[in-house]
């Protein structure tokens, strides 16, 4: 196993990744690729799940060390569920993001994981929060993270419009993921997309061969 991790800064399995979330009119679209890597050359899983449900209408995308991310989301699920029982009502998306931020900030020396938290709650509707490596928490309308995100900043800045329809937003997210997976070697596999609205949650999986193709493919 050691031969697979050559000069990786992340120990063990890493989700060198592309994750994103975007708010549209009435909900959020959350998406990720599905590749997990060890070192720069070995794909340890083609079908890893990076969009994790932490509560009924709140999802989390993970980036960084897979072990750290799974441990943090487990703790977050527990805290959120406990908080929800105490408050006798579903937690706010801000609460989920804060739980993750707390865990990331308190243990920032040892952990190597970043998250995008997105969902829908009754008070503020659809929201997207990003929790970066050191524990920074920021609310944005659209956000991207992971190693593949560097290749699509231009696309996001140019193509995102507030108050898109669900179909427009899904197409936007699929295109963004396809572009990033096309350029980043540690992102790939299938595109996992989740649409969260007041009514419920919808999963869309776009297999690699059905992803949109661009001029040079």
């Amino acid at each position, binding site marked *: 196993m050691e031969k697979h991790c050559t000069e990786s800064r992340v120990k*063990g399995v890493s989700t060198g990744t592309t994750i994103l979330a975007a708010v549209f009119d009435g909900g959020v679209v959350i998406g990720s690729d599905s590749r997990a890597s060890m070192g720069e050359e070995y794909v340890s899983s083609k*079908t890893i799940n990076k969009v994790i449900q932490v509560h009924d209408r709140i999802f989390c995308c993970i980036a960084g060390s897979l072990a750290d991310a799974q441990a943090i989301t487990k703790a977050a699920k527990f805290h959120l569920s406990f908080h929800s029982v105490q408050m006798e009502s579903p937690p706010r998306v801000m609460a989920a993001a804060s739980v993750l931020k707390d865990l990331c900030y308190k243990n920032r020396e040892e952990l190597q994981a970043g998250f995008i938290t997105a969902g829908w709650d009754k008070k503020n509707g659809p929201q997207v929060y990003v929790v970066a490596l050191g524990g920074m928490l920021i609310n944005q309308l659209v956000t991207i993270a992971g190693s593949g995100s560097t290749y699509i900043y231009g696309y996001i800045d140019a193509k995102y419009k507030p108050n898109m329809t669900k179909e427009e937003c899904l197409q936007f997210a699929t295109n963004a993921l396809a572009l990033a997976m096309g350029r980043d070697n540690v992102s790939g596999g299938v595109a996992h997309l989740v649409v969260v609205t007041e009514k419920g949650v919808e999963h869309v999986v776009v297999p690699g061969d059905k992803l949109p193709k661009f001029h040079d493919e």
Partner: protein
Amino acid sequence: MKPNAALEGLFNGGNTPKAMKTGTTIAGVVFKDGVVLGADTRATSGEVVADKMCAKIHYISPNIYCCGAGTAADTEKTTDLLSSNLAIYSLNSGRNPRVVMAVNILQDMLYRYHGQIGANLILGGVDCTGNHLYTVGPYGSVNKVPYLSMGSGDLAALGILEDGFKPDLELEPAKELVRAAIKAGIMNDLGSGNNIDICVITKQRVDYIRPYQESQYKDNRKIKYKYRPGMTPFLTEKVVPLKLEVVQESVQKMETA
């Protein structure tokens, strides 16, 4: 490895013993009625084969078994600990353990040690929710998969699995696929070798077939190496009685009322 760093001081610069690793090929496949796990049987210590008939498929609970790659002591003890804890849980709750619970316990434990425990495990089992196969890495990452191989021979075995796996295989093709995968690992990796063990877990029963296939390169010992008592002749005999001094004597009456 940090635990052995403490040992180095004791040897005054001489050769410290190397940890026994199971440079290994292990594989697992989910088939129609359950899970098939397979492993080779070679354990190496540096360049020497320390154990030719090592058992790498460990018992966790009547319906869950675990293959281990990495440091032999770590996989052995981790799986033993998991097995005991699951048995206690099962007795306390009155429920049969689920594979996902075993995976969660392992993940929590390995994550706490931040990769210091060198255990790469494949957990497979059948419970009331279905047939499951999980991989747990030494840093505590978990992945649920339909087929899988781990160890130093994993790439060779993975080629066979990627080519031959189909969902809902029957029992015999599934066993043959795992056997071929381990065989590929044995043939193409120096750290794997000797025999192939197979464990078939279904809802009704568990078949632990050890060995499923023996190595064709077994050595046949020409003579026995056991010697009868009295075979060594001796020239002289000297008997020295051991003198003992009674320093303190205390008598305690035993109550048998």
